[in-house]
């Protein structure tokens, strides 16, 4: 009897969940795509058809779609499906590293500016405006031209131009919360600047910042792939999606598969983060 009751509440909860997901298709589809990306990069060695994304088979270049090579092979006979699967790791690494760096620096600057106010606030925000005046990719190219191509430099470049978005967001939140009664109370009790920033304001400003992280994950992946496509980011033979297409473009017109599948993977990954971010933002607005 008790078991049946437990089962029916369990089922009830499950149907509640299913209903909620059906009402929020952006969160559902976006979340599923992002989960698929995470699982793919975690389980890459288990699900990839070939043993290594770098293994060449010079006797079978440009093979078509088959059971052995679900996405065909590239110019060096490497299995495209395996390379696309391992490429998920690069895109997650790029998104994770850039967002961790940009969001933490930007949030720190923005909170400090918002809480401190006055001249510090104006100078900092003006600096952010200057950084913001650069078109993202042009700033990234400028940085890469100085530091040289490569994954780390590209990640630094992308992080740099992502900082202003977080700084503005955190600053506006901080300015709004700074006047809240509970913050005034903390100030009156003698709390210092760091304590106000991190204990009192950050927890209440975190929601929109996290949503922004999800939304910008997609654009970071796009930007990093663009730079690798231009030959300035991750270098071949690494199985990064942009770098794979940089190679695949040489055979467009003759062999489509080497550029078709990496691009499809980029689109699905970016779409996942865009949908999830949009959905989460919608949930935040309704509250």
């Amino acid at each position, binding site marked *: 009897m008790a078991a049946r009751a437990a089962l029916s509440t369990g089922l009830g909860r499950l149907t509640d969940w299913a209903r909620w997901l059906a009402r929020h298709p952006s969160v559902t589809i976006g979340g599923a795509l992002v989960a698929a990306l995470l699982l793919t990069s975690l389980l890459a060695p288990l699900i990839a058809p070939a043993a290594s994304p770098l293994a060449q088979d010079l006797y079978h270049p440009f093979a078509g779609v088959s059971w052995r090579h679900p996405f065909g092979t590239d110019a060096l006979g490497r299995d495209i499906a395996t390379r696309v699967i391992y490429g998920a790791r690069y895109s997650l690494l790029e998104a994770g590293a850039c967002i961790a760096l940009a969001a933490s620096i930007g949030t720190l600057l923005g909170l400090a500016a918002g809480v401190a106010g006055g001249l510090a606030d104006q100078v900092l925000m*003006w*600096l952010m*405006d*200057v950084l913001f*005046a*650069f*078109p*993202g*990719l*042009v*700033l990234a*190219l*400028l*940085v*890469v*031209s*100085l530091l040289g191509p490569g994954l780390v430099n590209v990640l630094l470049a992308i992080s740099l131009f992502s900082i202003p978005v977080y700084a503005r967001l955190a600053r506006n939140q901080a300015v709004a919360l700074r006047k809240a009664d509970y913050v005034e109370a903390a100030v009156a009790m003698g709390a210092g600047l760091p304590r106000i920033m991190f204990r009192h304001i950050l927890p209440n400003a975190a929601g929109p910042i996290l949503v922004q992280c999800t939304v910008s994950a*997609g654009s970071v992946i*796009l930007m990093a*792939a*663009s730079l690798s*496509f*231009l*030959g*300035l980011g991750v270098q071949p033979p690494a199985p990064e999606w*942009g770098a794979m*297409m940089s190679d*695949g*473009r040489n055979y*467009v*017109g003759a062999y*489509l598969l080497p*550029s*078709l599948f*990496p*691009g*499809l993977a*980029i*689109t699905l990954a*970016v*779409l996942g983060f*865009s*949908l999830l971010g*949009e959905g989460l933002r919608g949930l935040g607005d309704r509250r």
Partner: protein
Amino acid sequence: MTAYVLRKLLTLPAVVLAVSVLIFLAVRLLPGDPARMMAGPEASSAEVARIHAQLGLGQPLPAQYLAFLAHAASGDLGTSIESHRPVTEELADHAPYTLALGLAAYLLAVGVGVPGGVLAAVKPGGAWDRLFSGFTILCVSLANFWVGLMAMELFAVRLQWLPLMGAGSASHLVLPAITLALAPMGLIGRMTRASMIDVLAQDYIRTARAKGLGPFAVNFRHALRNALAPIITIVGLNLGSVVGGAVVTESVFSWPGLGRLLVDAVGNRDYPVVQGVALAAVVAVTLANLAAELVIAFLDPRLRQGLGDGR
């Protein structure tokens, strides 16, 4: 209105100056000799010395910056290390191609995004709204270099309707322009829809409907006019990402614009050219944002007559 315009115009040199400091410092603050870095590993010491002298690297930083600024103000952005031509000449050669591409893409993005967003907002949740919302989120998620390559494969190689790459005729412009237009189309479409939904919920729209105006007059004449400000803002703000998109799109289609000039210059470490293109891009983006603000002010009669808050 005049005071407002003047105040806005004054912000332009401030941003451009700050950016010029940034661009100037970027190359000088690197460890090592910038002249050696620019000349490349195989350069002779005479070549390094020549670049050293050309950049005035022996002088203190503020003096170097003033010299850089004075040259820039008189239209001298230095000489390309690769082609040995003045950077301003290189910019002037490539700019018309980027302007043509950007203009075509923008017309397409606004031409599809605005009417599409209006129609989606008229019946939120309807069939067209779902279709259009799906299309716009796809637009902002697509990698433009992938779209470009796939379009080349389909329309240039398989169907042979359009030329594969390069420039020369109007038909060369079609594929790059569509490729470049998708991302701003998505953003403009989404912004139009959101802005229109806000406006359509207002009382005066109900009044307009109640007095018997047809849907076209209500949606396009009454509502769209008042929904325009955020749309124009996003059109202006978007120029930055269009410039970034143009870099990639031009590279895919071998379109001889500023984007390809920039990518080639980065590859060759042709620093004066990189500097020049970056400066041009920042000026263009700042001007576009300024133009957007001025258009919004002009469209708003309160601001136009100097009665507004001045923002």
